[in-house]
Structures are given as C-alpha cells and as structure tokens.
C-alpha cells in the first residue's frame, strides 16, 4: 500500500508540517469529544442522587466548555486536513497540465482526448478523496474508536463486549456492500454510456433512420436498452435501500443489548444509571467510525487504482526537447531552411523520401501536390512538431535539434491547415503568440489578412468572442484570423499550410499582396491547391507520394505539362464556371 502511494510522496511531503498540525488538532478534538459523555454520566447520577442544582450546573457548564473546545479543534482539523487534499489536487493538476504542454504531437495522435480528460477528472478526484477524507476519516476512526472503546471498557467491560457484537458486522456490511454498490454503479454507468452513445448515434444518423423508416425499430431497440438500464438500477436499488436500514437495525440491536444487559447491571448495582446513559451515548459516538471504516477501505482502494492510471501521464516522456542544444546556442535566426536528403516515416510508413530543398533566407517557396503527398508533414518538421532525422534539416546551416525549441518556434509564424481558434475574443486569438502586442500591432496584423473591416463590422469589434459561446466565424474568417495570429509575431519564417483554401480569390489576392509587403526579407513557405496562391513564389515544388517530382518557377512549370500545368488549366475552367450567372 505505501509502495503504491510512493509517487505521491513529494506532493504530501510538501505539507508535512500542516499534516502534523492537522493530526494534533484531530487528536485534541476527538479526545475532548469522548470525555463529554462522562459528564452526562455524572449529570444523570446527580439526578438519581438528588444532587444540588449547583452541581448539575457545573456539569452542564463543563460539558458546554468541552463542546466548545471540541468544536474549535474539529473545525481546524477539517480545515487543515481536507484543505491539504485540495492543495495536493491543485498541485497535481497544475503539474499534469504543465507536463502535457511538453509532450509531443506523437503522444497526442496516439492518445484519445477523452481518455486524458477522464484521467484528469475522475482519477484525480479519486486520488483527492484518498488524500483528504480518506486520511482524515481513517485517523478519526482509529482515535475515536480506540478512545471510546477504551472508556467503555473502563466503565463496564462485559457490557462493552456485548454492545460491540453487532458492530463489526456493520463495518463488514459497509465494506462488502460498499464495494458491491460501487461495482453495480459502474455497471449502471457502463449501461448509461451505452444508452447515451445509442441516443447520440440515433440522432447523428437521423437521415438514415428516417430514410429507411427505422423509427419504430429504433424505438424498440432504445426500449430494450432503457429496460436493461432499469434492470441494472434495480440491482443497485435493492442493495442501497437495504444497506442503510440494515445498518440502522444493527445499531438498534446494540442498543437493545444495552437495554437488556445494561438494565440488569444497573439493577444488580454493578453500574450506575449514569453509566448506563453514558453507554448509550458512547454507542452513538461509535456509529460514524464503524461506518467510516468500511467506507474508507473502499476509498483507499479506488484511490490507489486511480493513482496508477493518473501516473501514466507523468510516465510519458517528452520526445522533442532541448537535449541536443549546445552550451552556446543560436539566439536569433535569419530564416534559411535546408532539407538534406530527408526521409521521414510515420509509424513505419514512409511519408517523405529523399527531399532536397533549400530555401534561402527571405525567399518564398510554394509546395503543391495531391492530398496525402506529404506537404503538411514536410512543413511540420520545421517547427519540430515532429522530429526530422538527425542532420536532415538545417536552419541557418545548423542542425535543427541544436536550436533551442523556444528560439526556433518564436521565429516561426505557422498557419495550420485546420484552423484552431480558442474560445476567446478575437483580440486574444490574434495576440495568442504575441501577448505583448500593442493595439496598433493587432490592427495591422488583421489588416494584413484583410479581416479588419469585418471585425470592425462586428458589434463588439475585437472583443467579439469566438466559438460556440460567441460568434461562429466562417471558414474564411477563421483562416484569416489564424494568418493574423501568425503575422503579428513578426516571424523570420512564415508557413501557410493551405491557409487560404476557404478565402475567395479576390480576398486572397489582397492578402498575398499585403503579405509580400510585411514579409519582405522573410522566408515564406506556402502550401496550396491553387495556382493563384503560389504563382508568384520564387520556387514551386510539386510533391507526389513524398517525393519532389517537379520544381521551378510558375513559367517553367507550365512548360512541363505535368501536375502543375494541369492544376493551372483547372483553375481557368473554374473561374469561367464561377462567372456563369
């Protein structure tokens, strides 16, 4: 158990002194608490012996005093011990996020976001439960249990023995039934997911269902699952409505034993009526620890299992880092890119073969080719989203892995093929990679991508929220925002991965014109399916199945009568078609 808790050690050690304080308050609170019934005993005995009212007032006052002490320390106990668990949770969540930020794309393509989310929520929560309530209630159970039973034994050990008979049964019941409840609950949850998934499927496939008149069969199927769900719930209902009444009955039976045996002891004079009354109160004190005992065991088991799952995230190592960066690294880049005999395979499948391409600083190179020809992979190697083989990719003549990641990426403006904007304002999205950019910078960057007039047209302008809870931008607007986001960083290298596909040709022309202005002297890589986007590039390369098959300027490629000239002809036809009213 301790060995399995080992990963948590640094997180717990950080709060060592608070743990100590928490346990001290716990000890004081619970030990004070268990003395209170002694004064109930004294009070009742006082009643039977017709003690003076002053004496009773003294007992009552003392009880209240002790109750105040207990209340104060009990408050601190919870505040400290449960508080620590929230701190540990906070630390863990921060560290997990920071770690996830360092993991490479390869990790993300191999991991489902849903699985990660489940670990970051459910498993983290189970670990928190173990660290907080788990620890506090185990300690409370031990202290209260030992002290109460000790005092009860002190009062009358035979009665104690008798009264305690039904209680271990209660602990075992909680443990066993708690586990059963958990298992059945999981089964219900599984069915619930299945039901949810079926509804989702049904609603997503609504066209097929309507077209094939499948409404009735779908309802019948849903009905079966709905019934199964109810069936599984019955399994839980049975136990859960049984557990609490049966526990209540166990405790009631304990009281009954005291009623009988305690009564006889009082009559025989072995104990006083006060002791008899105190016994009843002590028994009540034991109820919670007895229940908690079974509960805590389950809490711990689940917490440990979750801890293991959670730790798989930390065990994944970042693949792309600065380990090959020399002591005196480059701090700025000119923007010269060179691919040298580059081969690249992904999951054992060759994607790029024998790429030789050099882009002098300040030049523009365009890449065209069919879907799946490796264009995006090629440019994703430059910001090291994936790592090129050793020495096959050089920036400013330096192997790319010897350049600090931070420096490298800071000098690149990347516009990915699939535009991903965050649910923030347009301003925040544009400034995403340049947090210190001024208002003028933002205006200029949005002007470059020709989206500024539209932003001014939005009621909230730059403050417009993007995404589901705000404005849904069109594909073209998103792409243009993403271009602004890249341009505002004033990068040495600008990479546009098919970033104008949703923009109409007129706007495209304007954007390209602006770009030539701001990107003068910067290196630009353009991927596109459109001739209009690439025709002015210094060099155009055509990729086919991971190999460069054509290269040259627009004019040179047109003479080749290959892929590029075909692309050109199509564009002409498309323009004509567009003109048809």
């Amino acid at each position, binding site marked *: 158990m301790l060995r399995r808790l080992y990963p948590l050690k640094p997180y717990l050690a950080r709060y060592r002194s608070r743990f100590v304080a928490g346990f001290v308050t716990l000890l004081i609170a619970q030990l004070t608490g268990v003395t209170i019934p002694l004064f109930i005993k004294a009070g009742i005995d006082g*009643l039977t012996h017709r003690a003076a009212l002053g004496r009773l007032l003294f007992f009552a006052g003392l009880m209240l005093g002790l109750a105040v002490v207990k209340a104060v320390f009990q408050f601190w106990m919870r505040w400290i011990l449960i508080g620590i668990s929230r701190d540990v949770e906070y630390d863990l969540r921060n560290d997990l996020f920071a770690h996830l930020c360092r993991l490479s794309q390869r990790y993300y393509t191999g991991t489902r976001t849903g699985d990660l989310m489940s670990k970051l929520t459910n498993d983290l929560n189970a670990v928190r439960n173990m660290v907080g309530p788990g620890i506090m209630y185990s300690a409370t159970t031990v202290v209260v249990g030992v002290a109460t039973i000790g005092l009860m034994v002190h009062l009358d050990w035979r009665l104690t023995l008798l009264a305690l008979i039904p209680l271990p049964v209660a602990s075992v019941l909680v443990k066993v039934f708690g586990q059963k409840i958990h298992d059945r609950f999981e089964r219900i949850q599984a069915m619930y997911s299945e039901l949810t998934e079926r509804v989702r499927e049904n609603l997503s496939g609504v066209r097929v269902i309507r077209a094939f008149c499948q409404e009735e069969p779908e309802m019948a199927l849903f009905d079966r699952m709905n019934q199964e769900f109810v069936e599984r719930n019955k399994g839980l209902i049975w136990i859960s409505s049984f557990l609490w009444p049966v526990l209540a009955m166990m405790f009631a039976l304990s009281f009954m034993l005291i009623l009988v045996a305690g009564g006889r002891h009082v009559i025989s004079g072995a104990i006083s009526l006060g002791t008899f009354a105190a016994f009843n109160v002590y028994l009540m004190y034991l109820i919670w620890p007895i229940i908690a005992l079974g509960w805590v065991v389950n809490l711990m088991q689940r917490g440990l299992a979750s801890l293991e799952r959670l730790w798989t995230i930390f065990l994944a190592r970042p693949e792309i880092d600065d380990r090959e960066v020399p002591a005196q690294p480059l701090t700025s880049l000119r923007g010269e890119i060179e691919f040298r005999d580059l081969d690249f395979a992904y999951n054992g499948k060759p994607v790029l073969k024998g790429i030789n391409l050099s882009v002098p600083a300040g030049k523009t190179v365009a890449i065209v080719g069919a879907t799946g020809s490796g264009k995006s992979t090629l440019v994703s190697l430059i910001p090291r989203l994936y790592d090129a083989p050793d020495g096959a990719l050089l920036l400013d003549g330096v192997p790319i892995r010897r350049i600090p990641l931070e420096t490298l990426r800071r000098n690149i403006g990347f516009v990915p093929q699939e535009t991903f904007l965050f649910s923030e304002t347009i301003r925040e999205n544009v400034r995403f990679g340049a947090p210190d950019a001024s208002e003028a910078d933002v205006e200029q960057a949005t002007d470059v991508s020709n989206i500024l007039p539209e932003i001014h047209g939005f009621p909230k302008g730059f403050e417009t929220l993007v995404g589901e809870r705000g404005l849904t931008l069109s594909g073209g607007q998103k792409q243009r925002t993403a271009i602004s986001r890249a341009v505002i960083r004033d990068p040495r290298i600008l990479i546009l991965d098919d970033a104008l596909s949703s923009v109409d040709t007129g706007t495209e022309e304007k954007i390209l014109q602006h770009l030539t202005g701001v990107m003068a002297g910067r290196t630009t890589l353009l991927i596109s399916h459109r001739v209009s986007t690439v025709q002015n590039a210094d060099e155009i390369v055509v990729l086919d199945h991971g190999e460069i098959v054509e290269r040259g300027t627009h004019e040179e490629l047109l003479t080749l009568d290959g892929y590029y000239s075909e692309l050109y002809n199509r564009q002409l036809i498309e323009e004509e078609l567009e003109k048809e009213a």
Partner: protein
Amino acid sequence: MPDNVREEEILGKAYDSRLMRRLLAYLRPYWRVVTLALVAIFLYGILQAVPPYLMKVEVDRYLDPTRHGQIPRYLARFLSPNPAAGIFQIAFALFLPTVLVTFFLEFGQSFTMQLVGQKVMYDLRKEIFAHLQRLQLSFYDHNPVGRMVTRVTTDVDVLNDLFSSGVVAIFGDFFTLVSIIAIMLEMNWKLALLTFAVLPLIVMTTMWFRQAVRDSYRRIRIAIARINAYLQEHLTGMAVLQLFNREERSYQEFEKINRLHMGAYKDSILAYGLFYPAVEFLGVTAVAIIIYAGGGMSLRGTVTVGTAIAFIQYSQRFFRPIQDLSDKYNILQSAMAASERIFKLLDTPVEITDPAESLAVVSDRRTATVMSPADGGHRPPLQSPDGDQRSPLQQPLVEFRNAGFAYDGEHRVIEDISFTIDPGETVAVVGHTGAGKTTLTSLLLRFYDVQDGQVLFDGVDARRLRLQDLRRNFGMVLQDPFLFSGTIASNIRLGTEWITDTQVREAARRVNVLDFVQSLPGGFDELVKERGVTLSVGQKQLLSFARALAHNPRVLILDEATSSVDPETEYMIREGLRRLIENRTSLIIAHRLSTIQNASKIIVMHKGRIREVGTHQELLQQRGIYFKLYQLQYKDQEMPALEAGAS
C-alpha cells in the same frame, strides 16, 4: 461548451406549481405504490419516536433508584413487576418488534419509491426519445446533437432524485420531526419547550450552511466546467499552443482557473468545517439544558430520570430530519430546471407529419425478392431521356414541379426546379459544390417540405402521403456512409424485420462485399465498432449499398462519395454501383464518370437552378456548364476508368 455549461447551470426557483403538476402526472400510473410508500413512511416517522420512549419506560419502571417515575397504565399492566422479566419484555416484546418493523418499513419504502423513480425515468426517456424520432430535420439542424442527448440522459437523471428520494422523503422527515416533538411535549411539555430552544438555532445554522454551501457549489460547478472546457480545448489545440510558445502563459491561465476551483472548494470546507462542529455543539447544548433544567424539575419531582435520558436521545434525533429537509431544496431546484428543459423539448411541435387524410400507397416489398427482375438481370430498355416516347397514360414516378426551398425560409438554395423521373430511369444530378444537389434528395424524402411548388410521387403530392408510405419507396445511400454500432448484418438489415438472412447475404453478394464480409472472423455477425472506424471508406460504401439493396426500394437515391479511393476499391465500388442501379429507378448525385455516362438523363444544376438537361453526349456537345464541369471533375477519370474497365 462553456455556453452550454452555463445554460445547463441555470437554476431557477425550487418550486413551480405548473411544472410540478406536470411532473407529478408521471407518478399517476404508480399511484397505488406511491400511496403505500406514503403510509409506510408515515408509520416509519412514528416509530422513530419509540425506542427512546422504551428507554424511559425501562428506567422509570425498573432502574431508577428513586422510584418515583410513572408510566402509562396500559404499559404498567402489561409489564411484569419483576425487573429482570420486565426488562426482557421491553427488549424483546416491544423494542425488537419496533426495530424489525422500522427496518421493513424503511427498506420497503426506499425500495419501492426508487423503483417507481426508475419506472418514471423509463417512461420519460421513452417519451423524449419517441418525440425526437418524429421531430423534423430542421430541428436537428438548429440543435447540437449533444444538447438533445442531454435531454434524454442527464436531465432525466436529475429528476430521478426527485422521485426516488425527494417527494416521499420530505414527508418522512416531516413525520419523524412531528412525532418526536409530539411525544416530547406529551412526556413533559415544560422541559420539551426548554429543549426546543435549540431548534431555531439548528434551523438557522442549517439554513446558513445551505446558503453557504449552495453558493460555493455553484462556484465549484462553474470552476469544474471551466477547467474541463479549458483542458478539452487546449489538449485538442496543443499543437497551436506549442507552435506559438504559449506553454508558460497557458499554464498561468490554467493555474488561475485551477485556483478558483480550489478557492471555491476551500469555501465549502469552511462551511462544512463550521457546520459540523456547530451542530454537535448544539447537540451538547440540548443535553446540558436537559441535565440542568431537568435536574431542577426532578428535584421538584416533575421530571423523572427516564424522561431526562429519553430527552437526551430525542435531542440527538432532531438534526437529521432538519438537515435532510434542507437538502431537498437543492433537489427540487435542479429538478425544476431539468424538467423545464425537458418539457420545452417535448412541447416542440412536430412540423412534418402525416397528412390528416392520407392516400394509401401499396408497396409491399415483402412479396418481392431482392433480386426483383424476373428475367435474371436483363435490363428493360431505358426510357429515352427526352421522355417523348412516354405514353400519355404513364405517370412519372417522381416529379418536381416548380419546387423552391430555403433552409432559413429566406435564401433559396433551390428555385423553380422541375423535372421527372420515369420508372426505370437513372437520373444523374451534377453540379459544382453548393449547387443544391443534396437538397433535392432531402425534399424528395420530405426531410423538409418545399416552400414553393410541389414534389410528387406517383402523381400524388408527397405531402398527401403518410411519411412511412412515402419513404418506404426509397433506398438511400448517403455521401458519408453512416454505420451504427452493431453487426455487419444489422447494418445491412437495420431494424427491418422482413429482410431475411438470405436476402442480407444476397444483397452483400450483389454489391461485391460478400467476400470481404466472409473474410471477417465473425462473418455477418462481426461487430462494427465505433461507427465503423475499423472499416475502410470503400467497405463502408459497399455496406451502405448492400443496405439500400436489401431494402429493395422502388427508387434508389444515391449521393456518391467524393473522397478518393485506391483504384481497386474504385473498381469495386463502380461495379457495386452498377449492379445496385440495374433495373431500378434511381436518382444519383454523381461524382463518377461511369455513372453519368450510363445515366438516362443528366440534370445540370448551377446555383440552385436547373441549367441543362440531357445525356452525356448531348450535353458535351452543348459546350455549356456541363462541359466545364466535365473537364473539372470527370475528365481525369477517363483514363483510369478505361484501364480498369478493360481489366
């Protein structure tokens, strides 16, 4: 997502009589059980007051050395004068039965009410799901699937609490409280009133606590939603985050939300931390009052020791019912919010419905075999494309007459569309993206109703046919083949019971997918997981062909996939398609050269209107839009198509 979260978070009042009446109506079918549960909980409440009273009886009758206690005469008569025997009587004749009956009442009540809760949930889910099966497609266009799923699942689940632990338990807590108060007043009203001095404090503390906890829970829920939304978004956009050197800043942002979450939780710890000790303190206060005041009264002989001991026990039993009652507030509040959302969905009117008076269309395909042509695959001569040879008596099977439609009611996506499909014809619709091709098929199936003009089937306005009668005539292949989780066979057959195993198999064979299916370890029973992620695009296409074929439709509607596949799959799909449309009236949104070449009629759509109609050759000669489309979309396929065709 955060917006959704916010919408789902809205909590209104805890009680709305209109909603409550409508909710309680769902209990009506189970009123007998509910009544029984109410009786049980009433008795349970009364029995809760019994054990401390028995304690008093035992103490006053047998244990109190001062012996001045009095007990009711009927008990005095029943109990033995011998203390040892009397104690046994109290324990086994009175206490034990009480305990056992309490157990059965509590168990029975809880079990039956939870069961009723489940049944009500079942009914509700069924009703919502059925309603969703009838709602028109335009509703689906405007409501994200996720939100509709929530109505059937999460929202219904919230109501579960109301039925299983809300409605009846409120009475339980109330009865318990009342019977304890009553018996205490009966035993000694002066001491009782003194003890009740803590009651207002308990109520106040509990109310303060509820308020505090509710507030911090609201903040916790919002913080959790924000953490999840942030994680979901940033894990998905991790590449962008890394490309733009945002690691540090995003960490700081995340840390802020994480801190909010922790802060909200610490507030709730504070609330709990103050509440539990306060309640315990009030409990001890009650005991102190009883000892001191009871002591004074007992000196005057007005209170017995037994009463004092029983009072101590009663005073500890106030707390739970009061706390539980305050819990119910939250349950009610969430239930009201959830039911409001559910009823809103249920009240959404179904716009595309069966007509009040429908014309019957007889199309019993059960009698037909899948391979309907009796002549074993020889095609009857196709109608001439211009339709001139059609006899005046012959009805077109499908006709669009000046049809116009706008999804938003305003911007027409198609306008003034008129064309016919005669029995046996293969009509291909071509056009650039956004020309309105798919809309045609949606209108034909009455996913939407035309705003202008008419769509006729067998010469009858589609709106005058029952939806089932209309749709049963069509077999549809969507551009993105949609597979359900289930088996291969269940994806071909769907829920259509009259399709036999042989027909499933035959359909698969006809569209060239049988070999593939048989190569699977489970054959037709092989499980299709996650909507067919393990299958290739081509395989999914062929399976959806088989699905359409197995349903043996009079008219086949096919939206060809645009995605490129390898030549071998391409050939298989083309062959499958050829066999699929053989001898069958079909409307195809075409992306394949082979399809348009074999079509009896090609309809060229451009910007929502029909621009050209004719055969492949005729249209090419016109050198119009079709000619350009041909060069853009189909010309490339010529060479590989010839090669593959020759092989």
